[in-house]
């Protein structure tokens, strides 16, 4: 309470009797609220508010100590925030004035009103401070009442974190409260908070400021399908990235990748965006040793197969990125085994030239064309022969599948019902996919079992399609005969008609 008095005295310059009077008013309000069974600290939407201005948090203080606000343990006791619904009910003179000033101000006011904050009663004063109940410009925007105007970029992070780290406030919206902690651990956060680098992305750069939308809103920049373009808006800009000496071609690579095509062309929400691998609030490139876990988050079965392999047992063995790249992951097929022509073999790709211990020279895998088995394994080695065996068995199965698929398509185009063959083709394809995934075990027997099954099922589908095509040929041959007989009858009818007409003329 002394603390409140001190702040009131410093902020308003009130005399002691005036402060006492105000205290009585506050106490009366508190008593009324308690009588209604609502605690001032309750996050319940039904909670009636105490005086808004007097409980306004000081943005300056939150900005200076974001960790304190981020600490979950500190939230309930030091959260004198009125619930959002109370602010929504209170008069918002900020909106009333700013929407009437000029078009740019009105646009801002309208953006806020349409935003998720505007819709949930999070008002202007919650970020900018001041007194939204006063219709006097000097009073409403009085620094003494906490008005800070446009927050600095560092202040902004702390301001957002004030509410978004508060478990009690966020519970009703069922959204996480770890964003600030994660942000502090991210490259962005580290640069901002430690290196005082205000050029890095902060909350509003991704979510917008006045126009904040839910992440589930397809028009939001942070909606998963829009995330790649959002990240690229900074990371593809050479000027912005120049101080950090990081590449700017990630978006171009991603766009052409199997992941990028799924997200950007097919709007497939299952496929990963930048945030799926790097994190969003905790954005940071995964370490080489973490990549298997990151990819395995989606490719669970493949991760399990990889962990059976010799590769996974090597301390510096190849990881997902070694063969597939990172931003430029391509559709895997049998062409990824070997270079199409013999290539200059470099022992130093995998061996330390000094002591011959195993290493992994990452630069050798920068180009997609070099992410091949024979980049590491010499073509005279035993392991190369095994890789060749795996390649050949997969290639045979794939060729069988493609041939069967073409025949089934041909039979379908001839109007034949090929649903049984379609089922067999699906089975063959499933086996082929599993066989390709089994390559991660690096075991020929595992791959061959599945690949042979795929080839056998494809052969059955092809036999079915062949039979249907033969039947189609028979149908058409029979059709010619039947049509010829019918037309012969037509000619007979016509001749009969002519004869009748001729006889009638004679008669």
């Amino acid at each position, binding site marked *: 309470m002394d603390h409140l008095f001190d702040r009131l005295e410093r902020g308003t310059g009130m005399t002691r009797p005036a402060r006492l009077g105000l205290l009585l008013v506050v106490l009366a309000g508190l008593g009324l609220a308690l009588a209604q069974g609502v605690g001032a600290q309750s996050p319940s939407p039904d909670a009636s508010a105490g005086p808004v201005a007097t409980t306004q948090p000081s943005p300056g203080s939150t900005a200076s100590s974001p960790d304190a606000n981020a600490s979950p343990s500190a939230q309930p006791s030091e959260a004198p925030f009125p619930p959002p619904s109370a602010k929504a009910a209170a008069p918002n003179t900020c909106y009333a004035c700013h929407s009437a000033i000029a078009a740019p101000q009105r646009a801002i006011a309208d953006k806020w009103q349409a935003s998720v904050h505007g819709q949930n009663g999070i008002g202007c004063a919650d970020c900018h401070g001041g007194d939204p109940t006063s219709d006097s410009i000097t009073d409403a925007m009085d620094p003494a009442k906490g008005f800070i105007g446009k927050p600095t970029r560092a202040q902004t992070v702390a301001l957002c974190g004030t509410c978004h780290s508060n478990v009690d406030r966020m519970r009703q919206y069922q959204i996480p409260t770890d964003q600030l902690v994660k942000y502090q651990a991210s490259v962005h956060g580290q640069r901002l908070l430690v290196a005082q680098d205000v050029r890095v992305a902060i909350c509003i750069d991704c979510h917008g400021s006045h126009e904040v939308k839910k992440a589930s809103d397809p028009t939001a920049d942070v909606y998963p399908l829009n995330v790649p373009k959002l990240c690229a808006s900074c990371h593809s800009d050479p000027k912005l990235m120049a101080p950090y000496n990081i590449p700017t071609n990630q978006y171009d690579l991603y766009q052409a990748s199997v992941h990028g095509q799924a997200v950007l062309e097919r709007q497939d929400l299952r496929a990963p965006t930048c945030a799926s691998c790097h994190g969003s609030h905790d954005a940071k490139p995964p370490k080489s040793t973490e990549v298997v876990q990151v990819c395995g988050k989606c490719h669970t079965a493949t991760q399990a197969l990889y962990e059976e392999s010799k590769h996974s047992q090597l301390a510096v063995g190849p990881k997902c990125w070694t063969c597939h790249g990172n931003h430029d992951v391509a559709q895997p097929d049998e062409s990824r085994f070997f270079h199409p022509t013999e290539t200059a073999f470099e022992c130093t790709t995998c061996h330390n030239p000094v002591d011959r211990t195993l290493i992994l020279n990452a630069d050798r895998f920068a180009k997609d064309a070099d992410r091949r088995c024979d980049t590491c394994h010499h073509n005279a080695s035993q392991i190369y022969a095994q890789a060749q065996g795996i390649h050949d068995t997969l290639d045979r199965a794939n060729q069988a599948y493609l041939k069967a698929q073409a025949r089934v398509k041909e039979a379908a185009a001839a*109007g*034949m*019902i090929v*649903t*049984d063959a379609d089922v067999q083709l699906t089975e063959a394809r499933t086996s082929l996919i599993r066989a390709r995934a089994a390559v991660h075990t690096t075991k020929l027997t595992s791959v061959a079992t599945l690949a042979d099954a795929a080839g056998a099922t494809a052969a059955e589908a092809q036999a079915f399609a062949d039979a249907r095509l033969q039947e189609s040929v028979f*149908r*058409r041959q*029979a*059709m010619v005969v*039947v*049509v010829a007989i*019918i*037309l012969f*009858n*037509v000619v007979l*009818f*016509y001749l*009969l*008609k002519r004869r*009748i*007409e001729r006889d009638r003329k004679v008669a």
Partner: protein
Amino acid sequence: MAAAGQTQRPRSRLGDFLETRLKAGELFNALVHVRIPAEARPYYLGGITLFLFAVQVVTGTLLSLYYKPTPETAYDSVKFVTSVVDFGWLIRSVHHWGANLMIICLVLHVVRIFMQGAYKYPRELTWIAGVGLLAATIGFGFTGYLLPWDQRAFWATTVGTEIAASVPVVGDALLNLLRGGADVTEATLSRFFGMHVLVLPLGLGLLLVVHLTIVHQLGLANPKHPEPRPGVVDRDPPKGPERLKPFFPDYILDEAIAWAIMLAVLVVLASVFPAGLEDKADPLKTPAHVKPEWYFLSVYQLLKLVPRIVGIMAPIIAIGALFLLPFLDRNPQVRMRWRPLAVLVGLIAAAATVGLTIWGQYS
């Protein structure tokens, strides 16, 4: 058809045998040995439709020997007929193409009757029975389309029956009546099957008897001159007595040639473009482009373009006007040049229907 008995020929032994027991010679002569206007231009469309109906009855009966009308078994039974039963594919494909050709020929027949003014006095009831036959035929197509119970059948019926829900006041009840519930289910399949193999054949058969009986009684219309009656002046009177030709064998031979050619067309279509079968119906998997059967596409497209009430009332009014056409069009003249308004309205309606159908197909 001006009746004119022909000289009796000596009967064969079989003819004697039958005549002694049936006494049907006179009736047969009355039905067959009649004369028709030499100027009649029927284009054999009605006769071809009758032939196609006969084909549908035969192939439909054969298909019903294998068909099992429940959602669990319908698809597999159709697949069995098409893939396993000897010449089952031919029977089903002929039935499939026969249905489509029947609707096309019937519509062309209606257009021919309209353009030649053959619906006018004294053939008003023939026309009404004919429009009833058209409605029954479309009903056959609509109910038959669902029976294979594949994705195309299920979803085309779903959107097709949805059109019925747009009818003012009784829309929901009509939808419920058609589907046997709120959705297309086994109840819909049961009642569509019942309609297809029992109700519609009986209804169409009765209408056909009425239609053909009146056609026989009144004879073919002369496309150049209105039927003589007091108070009506032929604006282009015939220069001499009406020329007639025998119905049998002249007309019947022409008809037989047309039927044979249509049979050849059916065989070619069934062989080159056999009836297909998509995946089994899955109410939880909506295909990308759901459309009703082609003969409902014009209404479907209209509903997308105009307010719902207009989209559904326009075809209802059009069908009503089609039924009552002989009573709405009081102009007794039959030649197109003497009835420009009717011809213009007819052409606009036909162009709109064709245009909307094509638009609906490619939209």
